[in-house]
């Protein structure tokens, strides 16, 4: 749980080897390898249908890959018993694309769900920690007793982030965190993730299409092309001659984002 734990040896928190995914005859991934390093912000990009979200779900154990192994925090998630799986899940946090808040609960109750499930904190302390998380996610104090339907899209994402961070996870998974936010809100969200990542020492695995997020907060970028992944820094991808990668980073939007950054 503590983010400064250095128990994981070589510093790889997610290790994917030889991953293959097929839906019927459609092959999504084939021989995909990926290492995510402790403490980095990894952005995952790829065209529509290249299986970004599928990869995320496979790492989270929501979908079983056809072949290959996935190690999460040193444990092969295909081989885990139920109890071990829950233990690993408690060390990760996920922000789904639309927040996925439980609509029958208030924001504060949503954040307290993992605290109640995985710890034996007294109610009052759990409520206090939930309050801290809500504030750290950048929500006003009045947001706690509100229901998700009373929140704007940006606030729902922040609330989802607060729930994902409830247990001080080591790895934070984000699925399109800035989709549906206005540019100012998206930039603020990027900065929020960056500052939380620094203060909590998180590893962030972020599926995104937001070029601004990629250029401003990602340490490395993983590009899904040809059913595999190419990981590199922004500079390395800029010099890549693969047509899709070239078009992606050298297209008008890619250029604009880099100029904004420079």
């Amino acid at each position, binding site marked *: 749980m503590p983010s400064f734990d250095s128990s994981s040896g070589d510093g790889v928190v997610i290790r994917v080897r030889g991953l293959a995914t097929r839906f019927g005859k459609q092959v999504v991934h084939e021989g995909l390898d990926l290492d995510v390093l402790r403490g980095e912000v990894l952005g995952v990009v790829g065209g529509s249908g290249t299986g970004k979200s599928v990869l995320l779900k496979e790492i989270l154990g929501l979908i079983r890959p056809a072949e290959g192994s996935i190690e999460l925090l040193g444990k092969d998630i295909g081989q885990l018993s139920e109890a071990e799986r829950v233990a690993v899940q408690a060390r990760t946090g996920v922000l789904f694309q639309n927040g996925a808040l439980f*609509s029958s609960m208030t924001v504060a109750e949503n954040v307290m769900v993992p605290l109640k499930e995985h710890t034996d904190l007294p109610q009052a302390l759990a409520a*206090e920690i939930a309050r801290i998380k809500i504030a750290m996610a950048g929500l006003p104090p009045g947001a706690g007793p509100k229901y998700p*339907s009373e929140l704007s899209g940006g606030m729902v994402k922040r609330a989802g982030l607060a729930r994902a961070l409830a247990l*001080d996870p080591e790895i934070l998974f984000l699925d399109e965190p800035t989709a549906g936010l206005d540019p100012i809100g998206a930039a603020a969200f990027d900065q929020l993730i960056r500052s939380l990542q620094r203060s909590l020492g998180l590893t962030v695995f972020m599926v995104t299409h937001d070029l601004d997020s990629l250029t401003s907060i990602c340490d490395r970028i993983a590009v899904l092309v040809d059913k595999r992944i190419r990981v590199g820094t922004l500079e390395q991808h800029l010099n890549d001659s693969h047509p899709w990668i070239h078009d992606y980073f050298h297209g008008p939007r890619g250029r604009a984002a880099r100029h904004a950054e420079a």
Partner: protein
Amino acid sequence: MAREGAWVEASRIGDGDQHDGGWLVTALGRWDLKAAGGLARELESFSPGDGRGPLRLDLSRLDAMDTAGAYLLARLADRLTAAGNAVSVTGVRPEHAALFDAVRKAGQPPAEPLLPPSHPILEMLERTGRATVDAAREGLDLLGFLGLVTITFGRVLLNPSRLRGRAVLFHIEQTGLNALPILGLLSFLIGVVLAFQGADQLRRFGAELFVVNLLGVSILREIGILMTAIIVAGRSGSAFTAQIGTMKVNQEVDAISTLGLDVVELLVVPRALALMISLPLLAFYADIMGLIGGAVMSYATLDITFGTFIRQLHGAVTLPHFLVGIVKAPVFALVIAMVGCYEGLKVSGSAESVGTLTTKSVVESIFLVIVLDAMFSVLFSVLRV
């Protein structure tokens, strides 16, 4: 490490008799979520210092700290400060500094309590009051909606080419034709049950044959139409709410409006009209099935042949009996369609509200159907029908 978990140690600063250096409080161990519960209890009774001297909270020897730990440390520092000590936090390790600062910043308690303390009885009174006002407002809204639909209906009647014939036929099929199997079976069974119970009682008086009168009058006047209305409310009223509600969630209703189309004319009028056509037909069908069920049971338990049954029925019921039942059908149909569509249009954004309002729509329309039925009974007794 000698000790598991997390704890604090307090010692005086300075040596010998020179104790004016104040207190040194050292946090040790792993200040994380796992330890937080016990730690919080322990810290409650932890109060070094005399409330005057300086107090130094040293974090340099922590093994680990997460948000919960940082929060507890910040709370400890705040509490000791509030007790009058001059607290200084020292030795924050660089890897802890950002988190500790973030938690201290986020942890500023709100200036005033968010919710005023409430009294359970007052709360119940308030809930009752709110529910009453909500119900009244809802009734008023529903009445307004009825007016809107009536006006739109009138407009469509004046200009029949605006009527969506296909939609009406589609909904007649959905609400009428497709309801035949379940409605038929249930009405038949109700007829069976009525005949059985009636026969049991009437046999004591040797008046077995009057079970036919009982069946004829009760089914034609009340039970046929009431069963039909309740089943249709559960089947079609809920479907209307769910259909329109889903369209609302998908913003289809907004799209209809922005395309210059009339939502009521497009969504509500065809449904209401279809139900007003199919419900009387269904009620007639339910009457027949109920009587058949009764006849079968009468034959089985009382040896009343079908011929005798029909002859007795002919004497027992008159046309008004049938009409009293069937005349209620279009009114019930309108109420069911109105409530179903109204609740559907009230759906807001979330998928959850579709479920809530669908339930509400069924409860409300069955409630209104029974209330209206009672009012019809009063009306008919005044009219001596």
